[in-house]
């Protein structure tokens, strides 16, 4: 059987959910694994629900579209849960037994007892990370929230190595391989304007990844 890790990322438009998925999948490919990534969003606008799906496998992946049975769910913004800004309700819908949920929040969210009980029954593990705060502190910009989430993922499950992530960030922002279009290009320009050189952008973002991997904490259900 193929060794598979299916990851669903839920966030808000502009947070970098799609870029994060792109970087993770590029890293997985760099390590010789099979990986595909695709986004799901409505009419593009900031703060509207946006999801991205990363499939990593030891064998060729045929399945397409949204991931209905994720092993790992990453929640980029508390509103995904508290305001239901999400394509899947409840946010843990379809999580596989023993799966992980990683939430970006400075403090545990007011998740209902019923939901917590269900997560417990599924033997799920819930983790919190102050991704936006870490992005501001270490990366100097909230735009690195997605990289902090990626770091938290590595802290929870070693799906790819730090070196592969570094390669992928370099490929995405420093190489000539990627041509951003539309609002992604505009956000890329803002991101790049925060740093004097692309090498600094990569270094700072890798610092964010490493810091977040250390600061992600399990929440006792």
């Amino acid at each position, binding site marked *: 059987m193929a060794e598979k890790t299916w990851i669903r990322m839920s966030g808000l438009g502009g947070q970098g959910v799609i870029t994060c998925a792109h970087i993770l999948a590029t890293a997985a490919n760099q390590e010789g694994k099979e990986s595909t990534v695709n986004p799901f969003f409505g009419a593009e606008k900031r703060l509207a629900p946006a999801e991205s799906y990363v499939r990593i496998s030891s064998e060729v992946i*045929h399945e397409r579209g949204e991931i209905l049975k994720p092993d790992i769910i990453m929640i980029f913004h508390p509103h995904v849960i508290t305001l239901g800004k999400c394509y899947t309700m409840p946010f843990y819908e379809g999580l596989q037994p023993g799966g992980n949920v990683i939430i970006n929040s400075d403090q545990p969210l007011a998740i209902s007892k019923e939901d917590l009980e269900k997560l417990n029954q599924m033997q799920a593990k819930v983790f919190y990370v102050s991704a936006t705060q870490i992005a501001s502190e270490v990366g100097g910009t909230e735009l690195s929230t997605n990289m902090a989430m990626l770091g938290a993922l590595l802290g929870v499950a070693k799906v790819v190595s730090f070196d592969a992530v570094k390669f992928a960030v370099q490929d995405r922002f420093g190489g000539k391989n990627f041509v951003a279009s539309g609002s992604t290009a505009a956000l890329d320009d803002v991101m790049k304007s925060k740093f004097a050189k692309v090498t600094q952008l990569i270094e700072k973002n890798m610092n964010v990844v490493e810091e977040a991997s250390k600061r992600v904490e399990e929440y006792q259900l």
Partner: protein
Amino acid sequence: MIEQKVMDPQQLFFEAERQEVFITGSEIVKEAVKRANVDIAISYPITPQSESMHLVGDLYAEGYVKEYFRGESEFAVMSEVIGAAMAGVRVFTATGGQGALRAFENFPNWSGSRLPLVCAFMTRGLNAPLSIQPDTLEMAFMLDTGMIILHAEAAQDIYDMLLKAFIIAEKTDVHIPVGVFMDGFFVTHTRDKVKITPAEFKLPPYEPYSSPIPVMDMENVPFRHMRDPFVMKSNFISYAAHASWQQEVLAAAERSRRYIQQYLGGLVEKENENADILIITSGTAVSQSQEAIAMAQQEGIDVGLVKIKCIRPFPTAEIQQLAANAKAIIVPEFNRVGWMCRELKSVIEDNTKVVGGPRVFGGMTMPPEMILDEIRRCTQ
């Protein structure tokens, strides 16, 4: 313009070295057009197509495409490409969903005018209610426009089918448009590995004198009928012209079969086709079926798969032969009307064994488990 070397199509498709890249479907459209020696591309945005024609615009800026502009509407663009193609140059455009339907009047006009246009259709749900998500319903409308219809399953198909579409469309004995269809988001926005040829090589230019009809000659058919319609002179002549001309357009599509065989290796692909249960479908439904078949195998159920790559002309003989010994044929589809099921039922002799479905529509993916349920039912 950027200098590229012309490579013989056969060599470019089958012999040129290939490099693996990890890019989205929209980016693959750009890579294919970059190597297609396109003279003019005309665009109008609609999700999920917008990004691809934006990237083709970048090709114009970079010097790979000679002319490029954004039209006033989908209807305008699909009319403007007629003018460009009649002038005798290689033309590319793309649309999808409502965009395709808005421009619809032009499609039979493309075929009737024998224009070798290549258009990428990135499918999306049709209003109402509003959707931007994938759904192949628009393909049901396109089946009888006279154009050749190819349906890409995944990333690699987009690259190969787009490049080959130009060569098939421009054969003198074909010379009708080709629509290369791909499922929006599932294919256009999915980042996947694709093997592509070096960017320094491109297809030979379009040869306007390969056209079976005179280029933009207002004194001869079919263009003469624009300024001087037969029907204004004599109903008899008009009937006669239509009767022969419409059959000629259909015959042109029939004549494309051997080129589709040559370049795409056939109108269908098959795996384990002697199994009692067969899945026959196209596009993303093929990918989802692959997963379902792997799950069925775990349960000891043997299932074969037929991927239809070319829907017009329809692989009638191939399907009749493949279906002859199957006990059940499952047809998963990403639309509510089940047009592929209708097509299959119209050619399979004992069509009571055709199971229409499962079907999903409006943008959700099709869980492989839905197909597996249908497989299990067929074993009972």
